[in-house]
């Protein structure tokens, strides 16, 4: 960690507003992108980025500069996104249009129809938020399990278990709809 960066972190920890503004501008894109990966909703990701930095600012006294800012902010962002997922039914907002708005173009498997994709997305949205976050970050976003574990504040083994449970519940839901993966 460079001296200038270290100074900003120490000043932020003491509650300096200018240091907070510097950190906000340095990290807002990364925090936004992280939250977007979880919520897949750009408007919500913007609101939650502000909410995350509000929580960050409120908790400045508990911040440990030697442990770095990014991981700490990411954990807070993950909790804010989890609260958001718990508070609303994203299933009702899903549509093919919405799904393609934020996603990168994927190589479509001709055997998987648009209807199956939408039903899968809707079934996924019905999963418990804790399982959904773990599966989103590891399976869809293909992030390293240790990074996901750190963001969620759990062990790698717990991440694996949540992903397994998410996939199992998803398969059961799809089977009920007559879709055999």
């Amino acid at each position, binding site marked *: 960690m460079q001296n200038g960066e270290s100074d900003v972190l120490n000043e932020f920890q003491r509650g300096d507003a200018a240091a907070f*503004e510097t950190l*906000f*501008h340095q990290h*807002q*894109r990364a925090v*936004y*992108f992280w939250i*977007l*990966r979880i919520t*897949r909703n*750009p408007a919500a*990701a*913007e609101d939650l*980025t*502000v*909410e995350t*930095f*509000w929580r960050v*600012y409120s908790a400045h006294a508990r911040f440990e500069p030697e442990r770095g800012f990014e991981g700490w902010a990411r954990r807070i962002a993950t909790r804010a996104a989890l609260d958001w997922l718990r508070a609303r039914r994203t299933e009702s907002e899903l549509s093919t249009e919405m*799904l393609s708005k*934020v*996603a*990168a*173009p*994927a190589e*479509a*498997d001709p055997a*998987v129809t648009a209807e*199956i*994709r*939408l039903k*899968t*997305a809707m079934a*996924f949205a019905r999963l*418990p938020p804790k399982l959904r976050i773990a*599966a*989103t970050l590891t*399976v*869809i*976003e*293909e992030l390293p399990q240790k990074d996901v574990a750190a963001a969620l504040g759990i062990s790698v083994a717990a991440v694996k278990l949540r992903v*397994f449970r998410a*996939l*199992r519940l*998803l*398969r059961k839901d799809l089977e009920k709809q007559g879709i055999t*993966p």
Partner: protein
Amino acid sequence: MNKDDQDRMKKLLQQALPPVRRDAEPRHDLWPAMLRRLNARPATTVWAGFNSAWFDGTLAAGLVALIASSPASIPVILYYL
């Protein structure tokens, strides 16, 4: 669910929900919104904090009572944690 089943489910999920575009970023600078949030009245008051602590305490006491009266519920509680 075996390894093949898991791999099939992963592929289906990736087809249904591709990853977010790497170039995604906010539509505008969020600092003005942050300033408005900072200048707004704090959401948490002393009374709200008290209510929250009271609620957490009641919830914890309820859980302990449930576990004491029905130890068989422990796996169910752990499952939903």
